[in-house]
């Protein structure tokens, strides 16, 4: 026990600037910064505060909220393919209730509850029945959107109600409501994972489920909770999406959102194997991918070319991250 002192100071001194770690931490942020720089120079009116808040951030916020839920699930070593369908389902159900004259104070929580229920369903399949997450969530991926379409007969339902207008166009503290919600959700998740045991439990379950079980963590519950939160957030985003187009669109609401979210989590440097979680970087990942897309649109790049660019950027990003991991 005494020879701690005789060890060479191996860990403390030799760490100058650790570039690999730096890239891993801030890789997505660097790309984001470059994109911002490009836009400042080449895109008209980019620096306009209104554009930043009400176009760029507002468009990114729903995906970012979903991505935070996805990051939680991925931290447990799972994946949730159903979030896009849940967005659609929650929006539909809420729209139908609103159109039936149910007061918003009831209808909106129901939308979120739909998401929570979906998460509970996924979580139960994964943790109680031991079904592999991808397949378990594929069930709702398929059936969820179908249910959403059933609810409204596949029609786009226009909901002209002040509450929906508020969800779409409302401004809170000078911010679009979706951006405001994103900030609230992020802060809440950061606080909870930092100051309560939840964060450590989550990472323990994702990092080594058996070890977590042996230290008394109720691993099934932790996993289920991750899906429940992800579902609830998707349910909430369903409301935002309803507000955004002032109508419910079962076929297209939340379409491909699960893939956007997963891609964002991945370019944020999170491994899909579980055991890591970083809300801040996840949001940076979403912003980066979204701004990329908007930049391409704003500069008139056709969609198919934009898709190629997106694919390549994602590969480049994770390639850099990988290098930085190897380099240590």
């Amino acid at each position, binding site marked *: 026990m005494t020879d701690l002192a005789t060890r060479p100071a191996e860990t403390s001194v030799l760490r100058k600037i650790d570039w690999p770690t730096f890239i891993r931490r801030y890789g997505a942020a660097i790309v984001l910064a470059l994109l911002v720089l490009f836009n400042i120079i080449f*895109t*008209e*009116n980019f620096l306009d505060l209104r554009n930043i808040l009400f176009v760029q951030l507002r468009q990114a916020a729903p995906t970012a909220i979903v991505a935070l839920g996805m990051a939680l699930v991925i931290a447990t070593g799972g994946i949730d393919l159903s979030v896009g369908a849940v967005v659609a389902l929650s929006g539909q159900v809420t729209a139908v209730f609103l159109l039936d004259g149910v007061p918003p104070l009831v209808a909106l929580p129901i939308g979120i509850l739909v998401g929570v229920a979906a998460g509970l369903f996924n979580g139960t399949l994964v943790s109680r029945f031991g079904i592999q997450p991808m397949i378990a969530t594929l069930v709702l991926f398929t059936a969820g959107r179908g249910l959403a379409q059933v609810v409204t007969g596949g029609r*786009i339902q226009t909901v002209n109600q002040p509450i929906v207008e508020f969800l779409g*166009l409302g401004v809170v503290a000078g911010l679009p409501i979706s951006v405001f919600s994103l900030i609230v959700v992020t802060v809440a998740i950061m606080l909870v994972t930092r100051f309560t045991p939840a964060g450590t439990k989550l990472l323990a379950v994702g990092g080594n489920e058996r070890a977590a079980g042996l230290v008394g963590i109720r691993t099934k519950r932790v996993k289920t909770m991750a899906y429940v939160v992800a579902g609830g957030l998707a349910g909430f985003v369903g409301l935002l999406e309803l507000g955004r*187009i002032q*109508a419910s669109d079962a076929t297209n609401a939340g379409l491909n959102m699960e893939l956007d979210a997963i891609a964002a989590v991945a370019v944020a440097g999170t491994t899909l194997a579980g055991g890591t979680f970083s809300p801040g970087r996840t949001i940076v990942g979403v912003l980066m991918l979204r701004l990329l897309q908007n930049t391409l*649109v704003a500069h*008139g790049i056709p969609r198919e070319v934009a898709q190629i660019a997106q694919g390549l950027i994602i590969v480049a990003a994770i390639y850099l991250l990988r290098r930085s991991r190897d380099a240590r």
Partner: protein
Amino acid sequence: SVDSGGSSEGGAAAGAASPAANCAIATAADPGNSQPADDTPIAENAPKLAQKDTYRVAFSQNANNGAWRIAETQSMQDEAKRLGYQIQVTDAQNNQSKQIQDIRSLIAQKPDALFVAPMTEEIGTVIGEAKADGIPVFLIDRTVSDSQAKAGTDYVTTIVSDFVQEGKRAAYALAKATGGTGKVIALEGTTGSSSAVDRKKGFEDALKECPGLELVATQDADNQRARAQDITESLLQANPDVTAVYAQGDDMAMGAIAAIRAAGKVPGKDILVVSGDGSKEALQAIVDGTMAANVECNPRFGPKAFEIMKQYAAGDDVPTKILNEDRLFDASNAAEFVNQAY
């Protein structure tokens, strides 16, 4: 497929817009529906249909989402019900190969007649299989390519709108509404669908006659409202001087209008929107002043389709191509039709 030659025939100019120099179409009248070519042949070699009191028919729909397709399906079902026919509907969910499989399993059940709303022009081979089983096929709203199936032989006829003409009419309407000057962005429907391709062609060709209207951006918005909204927001930010939007479909137009509002501009005033489809929502928008004009693309095929089927069973002459009559809605007539719209 149909020549867009006969442009300014018939109809009086509404004369609302100030004539702009340099824009031939700003003052021109709506070019109207195109006419089927006079030499359209008669369907002679397709499988025959016996005359009966009631029929068992099948309808392969390519997708059943969005108000337009739903209205189309509904119209087929309603009309069949009215006539006392039995109808079986399949939905290919936007998937060409699923539609082919759908059609095959419909053929397996040997309906008296088969209606198909093709996903793409290239599902012709399976149409030939229906012929082999002696089932007459009627195509609606889109056609199939000649190289795979012959009209009047492999299938009886096709009842369609002329999408090129629709695009062209939209361009005329836009030119008229804007007075022939301004910057335009265009939102396209589903990549590669014939409606998207043809409307684009008609629109862009007609726009060439109006150099004052500059097409600054074209983006694929996939007939999605939310996507159209996002894209329009981005485009408006990068091109703040845009004054007009052409959306190929009404859902995209509604998204664009929302985006214009979100950008703090007034749709119908700062930025004019022209669209196509003729939905109730769009007509209401015209009435409200947020949309300038709309080229109809009537989804209610039921009555016409069954009428033609009955004619065919009776042995009457049925041409191998039948064009739908589509209307142009603008401020002058929208209020009148809004309640009939789908």
